[in-house]
């Protein structure tokens, strides 16, 4: 017997759980409006919007944000190309070591970031590659590929082999089949995978620490700010921006893939 109403105890537990998860985030948001910038005093002595203006005029924030957006964009593009090709190979062809390849592609996301970071750093040192934006992108691409691959491989599995054969049977060559049949059927999966990859890259700290040179991505900049603060609430303002920038794509990706899986590839 199931009743639609949850018992009171369960409701309280649920709210407590949610509060535990999200109260710290709310605190961050509130401190973005505080009038006091030395210590995080609670409750804030007063509320102000001045920090938004201050943040706007700080060139180091813009620099870090710009770098983060560039890195996330390029990593996502790299991941889209390599992840899709990899997914196509694994789901369409049968070859020796196929399962192993599948596992190896997924491994970087299971591996602790610090291991990936150290490994990449020593590899770059060994190859005498100086740390730059490119090395950050390479680091981020390792885990961005995984999310794109995972999304694409699921969609490729639903794309039945007979559909590709039907296209060939009706006179289409390989490129026409790819353009008219494959791309429309995996487009939403790629969009979702790309958004997740972007969000992952945008707030990455650990791998970035090991692969960056003098540059600061936005999360790294925030970490530095906490260590030696000047105008502390600026960090909170930036934190709000990061939350919004990463949350929106993840939400969008969630809705895109949700619809797709229910209709078994029926809708674009």
């Amino acid at each position: 017997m199931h009743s639609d109403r949850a018992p009171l105890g369960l409701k309280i537990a649920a709210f407590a759980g949610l509060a535990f998860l999200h109260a710290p985030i709310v605190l961050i948001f509130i401190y973005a409006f505080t009038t006091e910038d030395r210590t995080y005093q609670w409750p804030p002595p007063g509320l102000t919007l001045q920090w938004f203006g201050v943040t706007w005029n700080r060139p180091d924030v813009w620099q870090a944000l710009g770098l983060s957006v560039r890195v996330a964009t390029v990593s996502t593009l790299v991941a889209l190309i390599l992840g899709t090709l990899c997914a196509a190979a694994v789901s369409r062809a049968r070859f020796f070591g196929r399962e192993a390849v599948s596992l190896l592609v997924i491994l970087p996301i299971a591996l602790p970031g610090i291991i990936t970071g150290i490994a990449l750093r020593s590899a770059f040192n060994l190859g005498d590659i100086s740390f730059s934006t490119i090395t950050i992108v390479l680091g981020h691409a390792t885990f961005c590929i995984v999310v794109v691959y995972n999304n694409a491989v699921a969609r490729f599995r639903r794309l039945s082999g007979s559909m590709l054969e039907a296209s060939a049977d009706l006179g289409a060559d390989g490129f026409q089949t790819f353009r008219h049949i494959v791309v429309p059927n995996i487009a939403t999966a790629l969009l979702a995978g790309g958004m997740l990859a972007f969000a992952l890259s945008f707030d990455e700290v650990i791998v970035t620490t090991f692969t960056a040179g003098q540059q600061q991505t936005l999360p790294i900049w925030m970490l530095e700010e906490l260590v030696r603060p000047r105008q502390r609430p600026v960090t909170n303002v930036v934190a709000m921006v990061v939350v919004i920038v990463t949350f929106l794509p993840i939400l969008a990706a969630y809705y895109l893939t949700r619809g797709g899986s229910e209709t078994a590839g029926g809708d674009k």
Partner: protein
Amino acid sequence: MTVAVEFDHVSRHFGAVRAVDDVSIAIEEGGFFAMLGPSGSGKTTCLRLISGFERPTAGHVRIFGENSENVPPNRRPVNTVFQDYALFPHLSVRDNVAYGLMVKGTDRRRRQAAAEDMLALVKLDGYGARKPAELSGGQRQRVALARALVNKPRVLLLDEPLGALDLKLREAMQEELKSLQRALGITFIFVTHDQGEALSMADRVAVFSQGAIVQVGSPQDIYERPHTRFVADFVGSANVLSPELAARAGGPRHWSSLRPEAIALAKPEAARLTGTVTGTRYLGAVNRVTVAVGGDMLTIALPAVQTVPADGAEIGLTWPDGALHTMEAE
């Protein structure tokens, strides 16, 4: 008569599995040809050898006299209706049908008009704007048919075309496919495991077993004069009589077949064989009665209007002259 498709000692082996083993056959243009066999008998592989999705390990497949080994599927004058229809889910019904013309570069207005004509031919006028997911199984099947026919293929291949439809729809589609084939004059080659479908639609049937063709002929040939025990049993579940039983029944001492519906009840003194009833299955129009004759079991099909003898009853069996068919091979 032109030969549309010719198999010249064709084999297709997958490792140790001989999916198709030394098949030779000529399929004439303009006919309705059935490849009939149980699953795994090689019939679908033969179809894929014609469409180009499989290549022969040995031998040649000729399409209108031309060796097809180096012709990819997209350049063959054949089109396929796939078993699962394989409609493109992201395209409308009209765009599905127009797909073949689109990739050939036909301009939009012409190909849309051709698609609409084809949809009318398969009685789906007005469905052009829908997505495949909004159609029933039978409608999807018609779309698949229209999508293949719009390309004006010289040979249409159908892979278990009616397998996914319910009985009523299947019977209606059998009629329609047959009249469509007559009207268009295109060679239809279809694969099925359903002997009823093969017999009612095709004008020639090839029976497959274990990668080889065991008999080719008209539906009447196959049904009434099976060459082997396998054909007798698979095509309409005939009784297969051992040489000894055939001799006792008054025929030559050779493997023979006897149709269940050819057998009638008789008084013991007028009977060709006598036996004991061991069971009855009611199938609507007929009762299938199993009778033990010595150590052998025979099945007889009695019209349901007739009284069924009780289990354990001693009965006499008879049949018209000529119904006992002596098979050429084992």
